[in-house]
C-alpha cells in the first residue's frame, strides 16, 4: 500500500504512519501475513528518523496489528487480527468522549454524529468487499 507522510501536518509523523497502516488493514490493502518493510527500510524510503518508524511499529505491535520477528521481519498479524478487546473498548470510550462532548456543545444531533461514523464504516466495507 502507498504511505503518505505530511511533514507539515499537526499529527505527529509516527501517528500518521500508525493510522495509515491500520487503515490499510481495514481497507484490505494489507492482508494478514503480508510483509511490511523493516524499520530501517521504511525510514529510509520516507526519509524520516528510525525512532519514528520504531515508535509506530511498537504501538502497532502492542495493539496486535503487526508482528515483529527477529528473522522473518515485520508482518501484518494473521486474520482475524486483534479484535475489539476490553482494553481497546476502554480506550475508545475515553477517546470518543471529548469528541461527542464537543459535538453536543455545538448543538449537533445524535443522528448527525452517527451518520458520520456510518459513512466511515460503509466506505471501509465497500473496500473490503471489492
Amino acid at each position: 500500500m502507498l504511505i503518505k507522510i505530511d511533514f507539515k501536518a499537526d499529527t505527529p509523523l509516527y501517528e500518521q504512519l500508525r493510522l495509515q497502516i491500520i487503515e490499510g488493514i481495514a481497507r484490505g490493502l494489507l492482508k494478514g501475513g503480508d510483509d511490511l518493510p523493516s524499520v530501517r527500510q521504511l525510514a529510509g524510503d520516507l526519509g524520516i528518523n528510525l525512532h519514528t518508524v520504531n515508535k509506530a511499529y511498537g504501538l502497532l505491535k502492542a495493539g496486535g496489528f503487526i508482528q515483529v520477528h527477529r528473522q522473518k521481519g515485520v508482518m501484518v498479524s494473521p486474520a482475524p487480527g486483534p479484535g475489539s478487546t476490553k482494553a481497546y473498548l476502554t480506550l475508545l470510550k475515553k477517546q470518543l468522549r471529548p469528541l461527542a462532548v464537543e459535538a453536543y456543545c455545538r448543538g449537533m444531533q445524535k443522528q448527525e454524529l452517527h451518520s458520520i461514523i456510518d459513512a466511515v464504516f460503509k466506505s471501509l466495507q465497500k473496500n473490503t468487499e471489492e
Partner: protein
Amino acid sequence: MENIITIIIIMSTMVPLYLIFAFFPYLTRRNICMGVSIPEDKFADPRLKAIKKTYMVSLLVTGAPVTGLATAGMLLLPQDLRSYALGAAILISIGSIFLYYVRAYKKTRALKQKEKWSAGKTELAVTETAFRKGKIKVSPLWFILYGLVIACTLISFFALYDSLPGTIVLNYDSLGNPGTAVPKSPAIILFPLSVQLLITLLMVFVYLVIGKAKVQIDAGNPEASVTRNRIFRYAWSAYTVFMGLGMVILFGAILFLPLLTGDSMIMIAVPLAYTIISVVGAVVLSLVLGQSGSRLKLKGKTAGKEINRDDDRYWKLGSFYYNPEDPALFVEKRFGIGYTSNFARPFTWVLMALLLLLIAGAIIASVFAFG
C-alpha cells in the same frame, strides 16, 4: 588507421559526455528542474524551459570547439603527450559543464522563490510498502555465470598453458602495438583474474544499490510512479548484469586471443567496440526511460493538490544530498540518471574510502607487478 582510432576514441568519450549532460535537464523527473524541486504541473513552464534551453545550448556551443581542439591535439601532438590532450579536454569539459549547471540551478531556485509555487499544496513523502515485492531486478542467479566464466578462464589457462606464447602481452597502445609484455609464468593468471573479480564485485555492488535505493514515489501520481520506478530499476539491473558479464568474458579472453589470431589489431578493436556498445546502450536506456522511468508514457492523471515534499535544503547545489535525518544511504540523483549517496551518513564516507583504497591498491599492484 591511427587517425580513425583517435577519432573513435574522441567520439566515444567527449561526444557522449557533452550530449548526455546537455540532455540531462530533459531526463529528470517531472517535479525536478535543474536540481530544484517544482510542482509537476510547472514542468512545462516557459521560463523553466528557457533556463534548460540556455544550459543545453551553452554546453553544445562549448563542446564543439573543445572536442575539436582535443581531436587536433590527439592527431598533431607527439605520441607521449596525446593522452594528456584527452585528459585535459575532459577536465575542462567537466569544469565548464559544472559552471553552466550551477548558473541554471541558481536561476531556477530564484524563480521558484519568487513565484511561491508550493503555496496551498500539500507536501508529502510517499512510498509503497510492497515496492520491493514487485519485479525490480533481474535474478541474482545471473551472477553464477560470472563465477563460471572466471572458473573457465582459470581452467583454460592451465589447460592451454603449454600452447600459450612465451611472452604475454598485457596491454596494447592505440595502434595495436604490444605495450607491457611479460614472460609467461603461472602467476600471470593473477592479472586477468583480479580484474575479473574486481568487475564482479563492482557489479554486485551496483546490483545491490539498485535494490536498496530509496523508494521515491511521486505524490502527484503515485500509481504510475511505482510502475515507472520498477521498470527503471529492472532495465538498469539487466544492463549492469549483462554488460558486466561481457567485461568479465573480455578480460578472460585477452589471454587466449593470441591463440586464435596473430592480428594484434583485434586486441584494440574488440574492447573499443565493446566500450562503444556499452556507451550507446546506456545512452539509449537513459533517453528512453529518463530518470526513474519519467519519460515512459503511462496512463493516470496528475492530481494538482498533492506535491512532493520540498527537500531542496538537503540538496546542496541541487546535486549533493546531505540529510542527517534520513537513514537512507542511496537516493536518486536529481540531475542525471541513477543513484547518489546521502553524504550525511558515515557509511557513505566508509564506502568512498574503500573505493579509493581499491583504486590505489590496483594502481600500486600493477606498478609493482609489471613495473
